[in-house]
């Protein structure tokens, strides 16, 4: 069964360092999402791609976060510099356009 792959699963970093997360969506899924989930809260959309184009990044803190999806396949989310408040689970999801999102296992970030 095809799954969304994310890495790393866990990342511990110090404040002001750079960190990057990678996501490989299910093959053929044109839409890719990055969500941030703070402990005890629901996921919040950071950025949405349709193929290689950004269709929604209204909640992405652009002074420190960046995301790209070169060639419209896998994607990278970067944070530089990391801040204490960035500690969260970063979820990647993909969709065929049917409304159902398929999620990866997430990347848990701890900023010290």
């Amino acid at each position, binding site marked *: 069964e095809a799954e969304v792959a994310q890495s790393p699963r866990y990342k511990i970093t110090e404040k002001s360092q750079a960190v990057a997360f990678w996501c490989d969506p299910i093959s053929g899924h044109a839409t890719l999402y990055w969500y941030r989930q703070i402990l005890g809260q*629901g996921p919040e*959309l950071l950025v949405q791609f349709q193929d290689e184009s950004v269709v929604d990044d209204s909640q992405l803190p652009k002074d420190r976060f960046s995301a790209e999806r070169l060639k419209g396949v896998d994607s990278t989310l970067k944070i530089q510099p990391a801040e204490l408040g960035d500690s969260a689970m970063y979820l990647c999801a993909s969709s065929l356009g049917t409304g159902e*999102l398929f999620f990866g296992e997430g990347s848990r970030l701890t900023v010290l």
Partner: protein
Amino acid sequence: AQTVTQSQPEMSVQEAETVTLSCTYDTSESDYYLFWYKQPPSRQMILVIRQEAYKQQNATENRFSVNFQKAAKSFSLKISDSQLGDAAMYFCAYKYNFGNEKLTFGTGTRLTIIP
């Protein structure tokens, strides 16, 4: 902007019993989808059930069913014959049927199954 509210941070149920999780939402649109997603501990979020707003019939998937009250903007999830594997965070989510496919999530309900 659309909002999704889950007023029960935690729920518990005895194994084999029935439990209902509540969700309300706010939207000015008439054509949308509602979802319940399940997030087990340390595992990925998966879709439990989906409801299309234009369908009056409540969706059902095996032991999972919903009570969709469009006028009241209410969307509750009923889990029958609860099993230990049902223990998870449950998130209610909303998606407008046009434009981009952004999902808006509630804050979740943690469900504990008591053996």
